[in-house]
Each structure stands twice: as C-alpha cells, then as structure tokens.
C-alpha cells in the first residue's frame, strides 16, 4: 500500500471511536434511567458517525476494493489499533462514566489539534466531530462531578472506577511508528505534547468532584500496536457477528 502510514494513522484514530461507540451502544436498553440510556446511545451514534467518515477515507487510501464496512467489521483482534481504555467493560455506571471521561478529555484536545492537520480530509473530519465531542466531555464531566460529589456510596464507586482505569491513561500519549511519520509530515498530532494539559485538566475536575487523583505511576500499554486486554475479543464477537455469520449481508 502506497500510503500505509496514513492508513494506519487513520485506523488508530477511528478504532478508538468504533470500540468506545460499541461499548456505549451496549447500554441501549440497559442504561440506569431512560434518560441516561438515550444519552449514552446518542453518544454511541455520534461516535459511529465519526467512524464512518474515517473509514470511508481509509478505504479510499487502501484502494484495494475494501469498503468502510469491511474495514470496520472484518479485521482480526490484533489488527484493531484502539487504546486499551476504549475497550474496558461497562462494569457499572461509574466505570462507563470514568472511561468516557478519561477518553473525552483526550479526544477533545486531540481533535482540536487535528483540525490544524495539513491533510484537508482529516482536518475537515476533526472540525465536524469536535462539537459532538465537546458535548460528550460535558456529559461525562458532569456525571463525574455528580457521582463524585454525591453520596458516600457514589463517591466510593466513582473513585474505584477512576483508580482502576487510571492505568490505561498513559497509553493515550504513546506514539506508534505511523504516528511519528505523520507528525513529521504535518498530518498527525503530536500526542506527547497533549499529556501535561490532559493530566492537569483531569486533576482539576477530579478535585472539583471531591475525588483523589490516583498516584500510580505504572501504566498498561499495547492497544495501539494490537495487543489488547481480554475484553476486546468478546466485544468484537458481538460487533462482527452478523457479518461473520451472513457474509456481505446488507440492511
């Protein structure tokens, strides 16, 4: 493939939204209240919409006859490049919110930079997505504050979720080989530069929410190069079931 680095770079961005979108979509019909159920499903649909734009572009670059659907549905587990944070399960509502919050703060600052990309398609997609993501961040931050500064029980559950997911935050700022090349070309975002502001914003919000910022300095990694936690396989089994069982099926 001629533009393999760009192709891999796009997948790295899109897979985060795809896998997180699938996780939020799992709450359809299972949200804690009707209203939050609809909110989570809306967010899921926003993310899938973004994924379509990225994969349509990736399919064009691959130029080997694969469609956006093939790229989304028919890869193997090791070929997905999402960060480990995105695939973590909806253990309870605090985990759903913590995962989403820890990703949203990153996602917003990432898209903000991607708008400046020299690749006009990527910058246009970023420009379109950032309004949605700004709402996602508002939604998840609001819930972190409500649960953190709520009852003793909600505070404890929220703290537990933040503590457990903290180990997946550092990976957001790791660079793959494709990332490095894309940054040099002025196409990609240098994620290492987003790190300090990320931990500052997250820390400030946790503080407002009467939650402690975890001090652990040991972090998980691997998602960006296809080495995932045990949760991704099950998620993909759900996501890919229809296409695997009825190949080429269309709605």
């Amino acid at each position, binding site marked *: 493939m001629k533009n393999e680095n760009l192709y891999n770079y796009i997948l790295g961005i899109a897979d985060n939204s795809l896998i997180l979108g699938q996780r939020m979509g799992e709450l359809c019909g299972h949200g804690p209240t*009707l*209203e939050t159920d609809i*909110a989570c499903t*809306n967010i899921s649909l926003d993310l899938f919409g973004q994924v379509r734009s990225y994969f349509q572009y990736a399919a064009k670059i691959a130029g080997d006859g694969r469609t956006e659907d093939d790229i989304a549905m028919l890869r193997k587990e090791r070929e997905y490049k999402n960060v480990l944070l995105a695939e973590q399960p909806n253990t309870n509502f605090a985990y759903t919110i913590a995962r989403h919050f820890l990703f949203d703060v990153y996602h917003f600052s990432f898209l903000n930079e991607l708008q400046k990309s020299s690749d006009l398609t990527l910058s246009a997609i970023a420009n379109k997505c950032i309004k949605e993501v700004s709402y996602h961040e508002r939604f998840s931050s*609001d819930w972190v504050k*409500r649960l953190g500064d709520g009852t003793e029980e909600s505070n404890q559950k929220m703290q537990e979720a933040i503590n457990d997911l903290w180990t997946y935050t550092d990976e957001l700022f790791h660079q793959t080989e494709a990332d490095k090349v894309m940054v040099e070309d002025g196409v990609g975002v240098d994620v290492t530069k987003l790190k300090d502001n990320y931990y500052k914003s997250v820390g400030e919000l946790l503080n407002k929410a009467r939650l402690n910022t975890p001090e652990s300095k040991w972090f998980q990694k691997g998602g960006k190069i296809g080495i995932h936690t045990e949760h991704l396989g099950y998620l993909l089994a759900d996501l890919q079931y229809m296409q695997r069982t009825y190949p080429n099926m269309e709605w």
Partner: protein
Amino acid sequence: MSTKNWPLWEIFVRSKNGLEHRHCGSLHASDAEMALENARDVYTRRNEGVSIWVVESKHITASNPENNGELFEPAQDKVYRHPTFYDLPDEVKHM
C-alpha cells in the same frame, strides 16, 4: 441503592426563532441542569429545537376537569369573542 425516582420535569421546546415554546413531554431528572441535558438528548436529538425550557412538574397548577362546565362552557355561545369577523392579512403568519 435508592429506588426513589428523580422528580418529574415538563419540557418545552421552541422549534424555530419567532415561534413560542411548545410542551413536548416530560422526563425525570435530579435537578434543572440535568433536566436540560436530558431534554437535549430525549427531545431535540433530531434537530427539533433552538431553545429549551424545563419546569418541575410540581410547580404547574392545573385546572380540575370536574370544573370544566363552569370554566369553559359559558364561552361556547359567545361566537363574537372569536376574531372570525375580520379579514387577516397574509403577512400575519402565526395567529
């Protein structure tokens, strides 16, 4: 876990500038801010609105259907109270 429901809120959405807010339904929320957020997700997800009002249902005082006779029937035979004897200019759109 508490099984108590959040309070009920009535939602009013203005679909276009210049039109009035219309009641479009109700939802549960723990406070006004959450009611606004929820209303955004439940009632304006298909781009239906430009403005949302929320009001806690308990603050609405409703008329009693048993009193409908005395409240509304006397108006039925007073046709002159309707502005049907005037020609409305076409420019007046929302009347």
